[in-house]
């Protein structure tokens, strides 16, 4: 099925997102009513949940999306899935623009499916598991028997026995089983891409490993492409080929997983990686990798959004927004970061010299 749908060939990225934007207008407090007094007659307060995100996902790869809570990861997933209308931006699925002049949202949803974080809330408690899974194919126009067969097949894909599990209700299943049912539900339609929004965050470690192995196997067997959203760096490193780091609605760094984890280019990514607890007591973190909280997404700082918390921030950082710049040592690797340190002649004192070696990131000193 996926062969016949492959229109652009292997070189065409399966999904390209260009300059996606979603701002939420605040009502009530700080919004229209309070806004007049506080802000004069300016624009109403808005949360910059996703603010100009661009990326592409190649066929068959897993793109990991990481960032701390509130950075816009889940909003991004909902924008991609058209569960929220986007304010601005463009989505291109295998060469076809989604929207006017290209393929419609229903056609997009036949090829892209989503797995949600909360495995309980994403299953209808009143429907037997097989009916929940068969709902998608039914909606897509398959006959009742056909949809039931697709549901059985999807359950087998996720290593659940259709005869044993199929007629059970969600409250009779464990958390890991429920999340596998959710994966089966997404697969039943026969998508080419699955957006996984924190699919294992609510599961305990051993079950996480099971589900991650299952996802890796399904990707190989069914030729799937994943966008894997998580705040768990270890999980993302394990499953992703490429990783995208988000901070306050923007992409701060994107690149191959190995390169990004071994040599982060952006100070935020480095701080994020350094904040992971180490398995080795001699590498105990004594100093805070980054201090303070992320700024209020309503009142964003000028220029680089990480500047107020960044150790290397200089005047240039608050003057303008840094563009995504390629790694000067390996320009073809696709490793890019939005930091003035990597922009030659940006005016930053470290411009062109790269991020300084830091004792914390390498873990050599306490």
């Amino acid at each position, binding site marked *: 099925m996926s062969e016949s749908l492959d229109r652009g060939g292997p070189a065409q990225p399966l999904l390209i997102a260009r300059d996606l934007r979603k701002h939420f207008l605040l009502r009530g407090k700080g919004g229209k009513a309070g806004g007049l007094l506080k802000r004069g007659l300016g624009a109403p307060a808005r949360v910059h949940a996703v603010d100009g995100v661009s990326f592409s996902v190649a066929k068959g790869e897993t793109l990991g999306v990481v960032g701390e809570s509130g950075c816009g990861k889940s909003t991004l997933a*909902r924008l991609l*899935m*058209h*569960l929220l209308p986007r304010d601005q931006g463009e989505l291109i699925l295998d060469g076809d623009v989604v929207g006017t002049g290209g393929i419609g949202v*229903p056609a997009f*949803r*036949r090829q892209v*499916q*989503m797995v*949600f*974080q*909360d495995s*309980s*809330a*994403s*299953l*209808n*408690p*009143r*429907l*037997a598991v097989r009916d*929940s899974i068969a*709902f*998608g194919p039914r*909606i*897509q126009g398959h006959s009742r028997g056909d949809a039931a067969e697709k549901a059985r097949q999807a359950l087998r894909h996720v*290593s659940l*026995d259709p005869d*044993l*599990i199929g*007629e*059970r*209700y*969600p*409250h*009779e299943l464990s958390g890991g*089983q429920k999340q596998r049912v*959710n994966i089966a*539900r997404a697969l039943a*339609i026969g998508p080419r891409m699955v957006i996984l929004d924190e699919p294992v965050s609510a599961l305990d470690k*051993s079950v996480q*490993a*099971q589900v*991650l*192995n299952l996802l*890796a196997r399904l990707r*190989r067997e069914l030729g799937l492409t994943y966008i894997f959203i998580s705040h768990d760096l270890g999980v993302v490193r*394990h*499953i992703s*080929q490429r990783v995208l780091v988000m901070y306050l609605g923007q992409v701060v760094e994107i690149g191959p997983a190995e390169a990004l984890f071994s040599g982060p280019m952006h100070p935020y990514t480095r701080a994020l990686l350094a904040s992971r607890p180490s398995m080795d007591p001699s590498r105990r973190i004594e100093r805070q990798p980054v201090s303070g909280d992320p700024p209020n997404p309503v009142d964003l700082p000028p220029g680089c959004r990480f500047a107020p918390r960044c150790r290397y921030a200089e005047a240039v950082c608050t003057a303008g927004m840094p563009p995504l710049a390629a790694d000067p040592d390996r320009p073809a690797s696709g490793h890019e970061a939005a930091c003035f340190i990597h922009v030659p002649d940006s005016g930053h004192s470290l411009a062109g010299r790269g991020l300084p070696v830091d004792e914390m990131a390498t873990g050599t000193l306490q």
Partner: protein
Amino acid sequence: MADREETASVAIAFATPRPIARRRGSYWGEVWRKLRRRPGALVGATILGIIVLAAIFAPWVAPYNPDTGSILSRLKPFGYRGHLLGADELGRDMLSRLIYGGRVSLLMGVVPVICATIIGGGFGIAAGFGGRLANTIIMRVMDVFYAFPSVLLAVAITGAMGGGVLDGMIALTLVFIPPMCRVTETATAQVSGLDFIEAARSSGAGGLAIVRYHVIGNVLGPVLVYASSLVSVSILLSAGLSFLGLSVHPPTADWGLMLSTLMQSVYVVPWVCALPGAAIFITSVSFSLLSDGLRAAMNVRG
């Protein structure tokens, strides 16, 4: 790449769930099993069953014609000449009149609630699922109806329409639509926020299909429980309407009407006069018991 994924992860085989001995029943099967374990609900259901059966088969069950009396047996106590529960102010057999009166009273209790559940429930789902504009329009209109006390509203509507059984039913339906709508709207709004609705939407389902497959089933529980508790309210309100002479007219037997006419004779045969009130009381308590049991039994974990 694939090798890395395999080796780095802990190899844990999927535990195959053991086959379960008893085939799991449906949701309603489970509700029934839980209901059977609640004595209060069972007592309520049994009494209701008897009352309903007696009302349905009234011509065969009732010992006398409810509308013909004898001057000789006016206002007689229990057990007088074969009148097991005595006779009323026109010498009509009380037991027969109570059995026939149950027909009208039960009808007045159940029909308005069913109509209000369908209409109010439909509005409630539309308000809870249809977005901000639909919600504002529907719920603010309901608020206007809420502003009137329900008894006054029922009396005013029935009075304005002329009075009669049908008018009474219409009035009670109108009285019950706003609370029914509000309960449904709350339940729908809760369900609409859950991920499985978004999941259904992302599998390409439209609003109607989502409502049909995913919303109604999850809203039905609280709505049915609320509806069953409204039945006793409806019986009491309709008795009140008949008492005021607005709904059922003599000589038709109706518990509310019987209560109001026998009130004058309460010093002559107090126990006989109390019977219609007792019938209303027992019926509405039985409905309350049953709805309490349903509420508990339907509380299935999500």
